[in-house]
């Protein structure tokens, strides 16, 4: 149960941090998305069912506090989680650059999915939506990717401290 509750609280904490401390006007375009880093970490290290549920909850919370009235993040975050699950055994993710690259690509993919959905679901024709990809999505994905390795390291440390697995003592087993 701890393995589920802890990331949930951490998600709420990150969301709060993002909506208050990181809402600084000067860094608007470069504001990193901490919740996406957590979602991807869960995708790489958590079991598919409990992790998927947490990703769903995190996406739902994002939708709740954002001006997005369609509930796009609930969908995109679950998709990201399973995307990370799919790639976790197929790519090398031990080095910081590879982690940053993974987060960058996933953040960009999410932005692209959200833009497509926004375009498709909006009854009105949205003008000048695609330039946002370069002016908002790209800087944000980049800043998110830059800090991702640090957070991955912290998550790993934290989970090894919190969820200690009992060691199998070879001698005793005989």
């Amino acid at each position, binding site marked *: 149960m701890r393995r589920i509750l802890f990331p949930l609280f951490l998600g709420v904490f990150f969301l709060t941090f993002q909506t208050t401390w990181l809402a600084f006007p000067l860094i608007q375009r470069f504001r990193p998305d901490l919740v996406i880093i957590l979602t991807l970490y869960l995708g790489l290290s958590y079991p598919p*069912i409990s992790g998927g*549920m947490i990703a769903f909850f995190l996406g739902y*919370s994002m939708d709740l506090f954002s001006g997005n009235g369609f*509930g796009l993040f609930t*969908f995109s975050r*679950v998709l990201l989680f399973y995307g990370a699950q799919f790639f976790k055994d197929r790519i090398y993710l031990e080095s910081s650059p590879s982690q940053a690259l993974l987060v960058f690509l996933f953040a960009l993919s999410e932005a692209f999915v959200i833009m497509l959905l926004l375009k498709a679901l*909006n009854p009105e024709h949205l003008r000048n939506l695609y330039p946002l990809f370069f002016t908002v999505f790209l800087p944000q994905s980049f800043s998110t990717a830059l800090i991702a390795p640090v957070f991955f390291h912290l998550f790993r440390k934290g989970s090894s401290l919190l969820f200690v697995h009992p060691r199998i003592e070879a001698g005793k087993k005989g």
Partner: protein
Amino acid sequence: MRIRDFFLFRRYTLYAVILLLLTAVVLMSLRVKERKGVNFMDALLLEICSPFQKASTFVVQEIQETFKKYLILGHLREENEMLKKRIADLQMENYQMKETVMSSERLQRLLQFREKIAPAMIAAEVIGQDPTSWFKSITINKGERDGIRKGMAVISPEGVIGQILKTSPRHSVVLLITDYNSAIDAIVRRTRAKAIVEGRGENRCLLKYLLRAEDVMVGDRVVTSGLSGNFPKGMMIGEIEKVDKKGLGIFQHAELVPSANFTKLEEVLIIKEFPLPPQEEKRKEEQGKKAKGKK
């Protein structure tokens, strides 16, 4: 089967993927179709998360205040001299304004306008901003218990801010006019040209459905038309920054800079009710009578 076993059991993975994605799609279609989500869940989560936001915003504001005070001390002398000059200018301006107000009052009496009643408003504090950079919203510390409902107009002394998007008992989310999903009925103050103000993100709005024949120029002020029902007539939205008459069609486009500074928002006002202009009130009364007559 134990709960832990269930969560870790891989046989159910495919079902879980399908179920979660399907639920997300169903939620999305619900929101698109009816423009609302699962109200109970929304309200519950908003209530759980908002106190954290409130506490965090309090800490941020305290730090900002301390920082500002420190900076102010540094520039106090320069600012003092500047303020003295400013007071002299403002006094002059004040005399002129008083004259204008008096003449305007005389004109109002002459036109036999009804006495203006101040609209019922609720003041609220901004406790959080949008977690993403591409959508534009804020969270405020007033909700359904204070009489706030979806769609209510949100303003500040500088101008229009947006509309209530989601509510919970004690908190609400406001969709800013700069968001892509926002649209408000407006008129250009100088020429009375009608248009729709749509959000464009990045502190910009777009004036849509503005007839090409209309005379609109940079610097023109845009105000609410009062036709959308939520906003009273004549509330300042912003100033036209760019006019685009290129291309074919019967409409021209104009870019608008909102008069309110969304990055420095701390308090907002929510309009609960507002008095209708005399003509519209009469029209409504007549419509009501007609409807009763038909019954």
